[in-house]
């Protein structure tokens, strides 16, 4: 842990000093986890995450530094933007998994655009069935399709969580699998909005 350049106190988080209230730009390479006082891992205590976010925001927010120099005000704005982004990513399980995958070497969404096996064919089948059911006003079939889609979405989320939890020791195949699953979510979500 580093020390505060203003007062010398040991810093518990890299962006502000609990002791004197000074705020600092984080070292290059500071990730969302360390910014919010967490180690790099998928499993985290969401309650503590929210608490840390609020506590840090209360210290670095520009409203708290409105009487300081323009330089400090600009820094406060940057830091709060960083905190907001980090919190938005980490407080969402899917974004957290995606971020963790990227952070530990990918593949990123840009590098691997694929989805698991027959997902696209399945989605097309669901769409066809939906169109037919709509044509004859078959509410029950639509409801069944919705339930199936929802359960597949949940299964995918569970598998994402399991793979992301073991990211440190994951094989290349498992990492790729995680990427494909993350890419797949969009299809399930699109279907969710269609299946009403």
């Amino acid at each position, binding site marked *: 842990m580093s020390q505060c350049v203003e007062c010398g106190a040991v810093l518990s988080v890299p962006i502000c000093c609990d002791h004197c209230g000074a705020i600092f730009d984080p070292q290059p390479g500071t990730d969302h986890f360390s910014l919010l006082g967490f180690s790099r891992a998928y499993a985290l205590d969401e309650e503590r995450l929210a608490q840390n976010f609020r506590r840090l925001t209360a210290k670095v*927010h*520009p*409203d708290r530094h*409105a009487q300081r120099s323009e330089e400090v005000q600009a820094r406060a704005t*940057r830091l*709060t*933007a960083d905190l*907001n982004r980090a*919190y938005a990513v980490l407080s969402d399980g899917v974004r957290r998994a995606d971020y963790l995958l990227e952070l530990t070497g990918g593949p990123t969404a840009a590098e691997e655009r694929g989805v698991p096996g027959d997902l696209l064919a399945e989605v097309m089948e669901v769409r066809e069935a939906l169109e037919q059911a709509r044509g004859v006003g078959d509410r029950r079939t639509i409801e069944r399709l919705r339930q199936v889609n929802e359960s597949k979405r949940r299964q995918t989320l569970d598998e994402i969580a399991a793979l992301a939890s073991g990211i440190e020791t994951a094989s290349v195949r498992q990492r790729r699998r995680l990427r494909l699953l993350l890419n797949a979510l969009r299809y399930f979500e699109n279907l969710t909005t269609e299946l009403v």
Partner: protein
Amino acid sequence: MKRDGDIIVGVDLGTTNSLVAFADAAGPRLIAGEGGEDDVIVPSFVRFEADGRTIVGKGARDHAVEHPLETVYSIKRLMGRGTADLAEEVRRLPYRVEKLSGAEGRDVAAVAAGGRMWTPPQVSALILAELKRRAEAHFGCDVTKAVITVPAHFDDAQRQATRDAGVIAGLEVVRIVNEPTAAALAYGLDRSASATIAVYDFGGGTFDISLLRVEGGVFEVLAVDGDTHLGGDDLDRTLIDLFSREIREQSGHDIDSPVIRQQLRSLAEAVKVRLSEEDRTSVEIAVGGAFTYRRQVTKAELEALIAPFVDRTLEACRRALKAAKRSASEVAEVVLVGGSTRVPLVRRAVGELFGRRPYTALNPEHVVALGAAVQASILAGRRQDLLLLDVTPLSLGIETLGGAVGKLIGANTRVPCKAVETFTTFQDGQTAVKINVLQGERELAADCRSLGMFELRGIPPMPAGIPKVEVTFLIDANGILNVSAREVRSGAEASIQIVPSHGLTREEVRRMQHEAIEHAREDMSAHHLIDVRATVEFDLNKAERMIREHGVLLAPADRASLSEAAAALRALARESSDARLINEHREAFNRRLIPLAEKALTAALKT
């Protein structure tokens, strides 16, 4: 005047009314004008006189009917807008709105009044200057800093325009705060345990719904929705349209004129207000010729007319609930803000949607200014126990190839927030790249609002596709976009030239600020001149009476020269506009009068 840097006032710059407030240790209080404690509202009306003078507030509002072309109101609806946006609106306004000339590549609406063009920030600045003057009279020192509120749904151009108005009025706008958030602060709806509250803000020209999570002094906005062109003006307009249609049908004439428009507007507003208390009311309006329009209006009739607008507000509430991932029943408190929430139908509809009686302990027309004052006290460092965390109301994106929108920051993202995007060149040696920055939720660039063209310059000449320009889009705590750029390979700061689509350039704002100072000085000297002339007239009348009654006490030559001097002073006061010169001559004349005054006094004592 002494300066006090600690004074930051809170300003509600409203469509219909504007207010200024200040919060000290005892809490926030509205600052009143000369009319006494209840004189806290400055109607957002400005009249432009032919001689260049401007009249702000009640004086302008109360004579709007006699001066339809010169009286500007609802200027907030024009802020940050172009004439293309306002085509529909402008047809109904009695005053003239035109495209600002000399603004190539931009569409900035401006008002033509008093023989010149006024941009909306300039008009708003006149209202702000009046509020500033009130605050300065109250504190007895300069007031140069303010927190100004805007509808939560205001886009970047509208926020910029508001800040520009502050600058032109000589105010440093320390923070732009969203109106519903300010209202939540004023209500102090703080809880020790976490609770969700809704602020339903239906004003003169805009509608906002905000959902907040409050806990331990932190007011965290979860989602906002709304419409910057939906307000009491629209409710009034349903009546205006009804009346004008019937007048046309019954009189057989199209009687549209600026005077009639302004008369109908005042009438419609009065009817709406009366029907908030009563079940029926009658209207009567002489529209020229022998024809007088008379009619009864019932509350039910009004409610049928305005129901579609109220429904639109409820739609926005539902969207906001969805974005905040909350159900209506989870909302612990609903706060009403804005004059339009006095309409009984509005209260009923909101109560039904949230399944609870809305909270209205504070005056809905005062609460925003009070909240702005609380936020000002936070920024001044006097309140450490409160903190506002707000969101950006609209998605931010850039136009990509083929006219699509590449989204950078989503709506309802906490501010400040930032996104970084890398751009490159398409041609060898290209040194500049143009980016169209957009705000809105639609898929196509053409359906979103362009904030402006951002031109990156100073890219080192390299083969096509090689330069990597990293552009940082940062939305600050005011909800205003700041853009910076850097060429990654060379590390060179790229400069950014911004042509706002509907806004003013910095140079224009600076020029307008100087103009405003000049204008205020002229205004002041005009007032001063009037005062000096009045004093001259008063002194001359007194002197002439003395010459008439006691002139016999002087030698005839002295008496004649004194009369001549009086005539000369009167001529000077009439012809010169140099107040100081006139005043010097007045004083000199009064000194010449002293011997006669003394003789008159001695004579009086003798008898």
